């Protein structure tokens, strides 16, 4: 769950991480003018959207007076940035920056530990810094079990040659950021840029926070404090009509899951499942050079009608040439019922299952019964002796055959 910048900054503020003066959200030009007046100097106004590219879209403006701030806020509130309507305008003091830093905490999937990343080159993508100036990046993993100690942050920051007051000030910010990350089950807590002002103070100019979706319940208290509804879905982009229809199909029948549809621009429809298995299969298709038209999960024993409706939806997407039905070994989803639903959906769309289904690889419960059905309709199927990776390869090869 992604936080808006103003929410991220409110969270940082609770941990004593310094923000620019003002730093409040306005929902009208008048409010923006009032905040600018309170700040009493030049301000920056930023659209509150859950997407990047604000600056290019005109979502970040500067103002020297309250009336200019009102005018800028009016412009920003009227924007739609990559499909997102701003939730407000963050108004804060425009700070005289001496140097920009990067500070972030995220998960390292390989190490299975949180990692703190610090750079004395902030304001640009940290990936770009890592690639072009690796000597300006320092990283340190830390435990999820033991408390985060200040010395860990100090060592990390000092490794890039920071010393004296700067080191002390940065150490406090970094340690507090790590604590916020751990205490609130975040998957990302990032300050970029973290600016050192001309007077030597440090302030967080922009913040990025992602909360683990499954932690919404355990983090209810902090979400309430920040005014975030835990039930709110924060998506990187609004769902498409196709995706909304997928959700409707899923909601129409409580039996199993047949939804979570995400649309792409490829030509192979994917009916996939088994938790991490579905992501693995998606990646395997890409690795073999395939172009998924969607990511569409099934599981938990969906009804035949639900699977059928979902299959029809997938085939209705322009550009979809074939579908691949693949899962890891399943115990809680019946292979024969999925086979019935998919075949029925294909037939109801007026296609031959043998031509439209590139591969059917769902080994598990009632598979022999499912295989009888698939055999009857001439569908290419396989059992668990064919790996998910191989099955994905077969699907992509079928696509190439046409």
């Amino acid at each position, binding site marked *: 769950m992604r936080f808006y910048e103003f929410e991220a900054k409110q969270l940082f503020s609770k941990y004593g991480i310094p923000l620019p003066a003002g730093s409040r959200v306005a929902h009208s030009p008048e409010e923006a003018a009032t905040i600018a007046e309170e700040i009493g100097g030049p301000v920056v106004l930023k659209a509150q959207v859950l997407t990047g590219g604000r600056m290019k879209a005109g979502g970040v403006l500067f103002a020297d007076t309250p009336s200019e701030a009102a005018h800028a806020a009016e412009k920003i509130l009227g924007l739609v940035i990559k499909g997102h309507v701003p939730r407000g305008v963050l108004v804060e003091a425009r700070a005289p920056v001496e140097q920009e830093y990067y500070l972030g905490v995220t998960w390292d999937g390989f190490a299975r530990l949180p990692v703190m990343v610090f750079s004395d080159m902030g304001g640009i993508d940290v990936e770009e810094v890592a690639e072009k100036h690796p000597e300006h990046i320092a990283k340190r993993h830390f435990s999820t079990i033991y408390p985060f100690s200040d010395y860990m942050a100090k060592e990390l920051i000092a490794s890039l040659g920071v010393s004296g007051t700067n080191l002390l000030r940065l150490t406090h910010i970094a340690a507090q950021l790590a604590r916020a990350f751990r205490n609130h089950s975040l998957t990302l807590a990032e300050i970029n840029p973290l600016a050192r002002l001309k007077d030597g103070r440090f302030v967080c100019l922009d913040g990025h926070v992602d909360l683990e979706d499954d932690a919404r319940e355990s983090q209810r208290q902090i979400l309430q404090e920040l005014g975030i509804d835990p039930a709110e879905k924060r998506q990187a982009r609004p769902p498409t009509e196709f995706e909304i229809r997928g959700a409707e199909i899923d909601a129409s029948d409580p039996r199993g899951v047949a939804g979570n549809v995400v649309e792409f621009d490829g030509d192979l429809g994917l009916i996939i499942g088994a938790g991490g298995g579905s992501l693995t299969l998606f990646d395997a298709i890409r690795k073999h050079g395939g172009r998924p038209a969607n990511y569409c999960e099934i599981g938990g024993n969906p*009804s*035949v*009608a639900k699977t059928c409706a979902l299959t029809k939806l997938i085939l209705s997407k322009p550009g979809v040439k074939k579908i691949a039905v693949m899962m890891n070994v399943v115990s809680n989803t*019946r292979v024969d*019922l999925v086979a*019935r639903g998919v*075949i*029925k959906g294909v*037939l109801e769309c007026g296609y031959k299952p043998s031509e439209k289904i590139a591969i059917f690889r769902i080994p598990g419960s009632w598979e022999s*019964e499912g295989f*009888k*059905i698939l*055999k*009857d309709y001439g569908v290419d199927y396989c059992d668990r002796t064919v790996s998910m990776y191989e099955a994905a390869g077969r699907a992509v090869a079928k696509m190439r055959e046409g």
Partner: protein
Amino acid sequence: MALFIDVEVDPKVAADSELARKLVEVCPVNIFALGKQDKLEVVEKNLDECTLCELCLAVAAPGSVKVKKLYGEREVLVRRE
């Protein structure tokens, strides 16, 4: 139109309202419904949802309810004594 499963019920069983109620009650996927005068009706649109649980076979007299698979060897599930 069902593609995979068909169910055949002996007309005498279908007319027996008590048995009809039992069949409606036991089927987990609503293949049976009560029609006029509590006569048993087969709900065509739900036939393909049949989970082959055989509960309908268990409550009716032997041979009075048949579940037919319309694929593979066209097996017919029926309770035998």
